[in-house]
């Protein structure tokens, strides 16, 4: 089905240094992406930025280890499904506003207490959903772009 990733990109053979750094650093990047997502309502950042940070973790992985290795961790089909699901969830979150009677994409759970960090309700939910969609989408297209044909 797939030809192996040993074409022109394989010319740069794997090096120890990049391999190790990517393995140790990429999880932290993913975690940082999730941080940017979950704190999007209280600090700079939000869905899109967090998603792109997550995608940058994936990019780091495939740049250092080849697209194949990254695809084992983040399979193509799963990513595309997750992306679509997240989009659907976004619309669903909007429909929740309709169900609560305040209109599409309304905010049915504004809390009085806004100082506690991850309790901003709707905004947090939307951030998460957008972040997942953007993360999977951007990493999907980057993986696809850099795959040898």
């Amino acid at each position, binding site marked *: 089905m797939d030809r192996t990733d040993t074409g022109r990109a394989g*010319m740069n053979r794997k090096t120890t240094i990049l391999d190790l750094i990517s393995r140790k650093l990429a999880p932290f990047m993913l975690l940082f992406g999730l941080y940017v997502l979950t704190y999007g309502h209280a600090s700079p950042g939000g869905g899109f930025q967090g998603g792109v940070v997550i995608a940058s973790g994936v990019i780091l992985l495939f740049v250092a280890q080849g697209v194949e290795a990254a695809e084992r961790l983040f399979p193509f089909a799963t990513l595309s499904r997750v992306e679509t699901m997240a989009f659907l969830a976004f619309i669903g979150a909007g429909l929740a506003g309709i169900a609560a009677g305040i209109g599409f994409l309304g905010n049915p759970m504004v809390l009085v207490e806004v100082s506690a960090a991850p309790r901003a309700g709707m905004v947090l939910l939307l951030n998460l959903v957008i972040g997942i969609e953007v993360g999977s989408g951007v990493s999907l297209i980057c993986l696809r772009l850099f795959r040898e044909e």
Partner: protein
Amino acid sequence: MALTLVWTIRFLVVSIVVSMVRVVIGPTVADRMIGLNLVAAQTLALLVLISVSMDRTILLDVALVYDIFGFVGLLVMTRYFSGRKGEL
């Protein structure tokens, strides 16, 4: 103390100007990359200094994201560019 910060920030802006020279004139791509790296490092310092001078913790996130993306961008650049020998 605020004065020190302000002057340091100004100094860094000027030094970014100087580093840009290498980016613009660099004869080879590697030279330009060095310039890019230098600009990125100084911009990181600048971001950190500005956030410290504003005393807002949350602004430091920007610096970290910036650092991450500078690194990843450079990595992709070097990784996917091995042209013919001698063509740099």
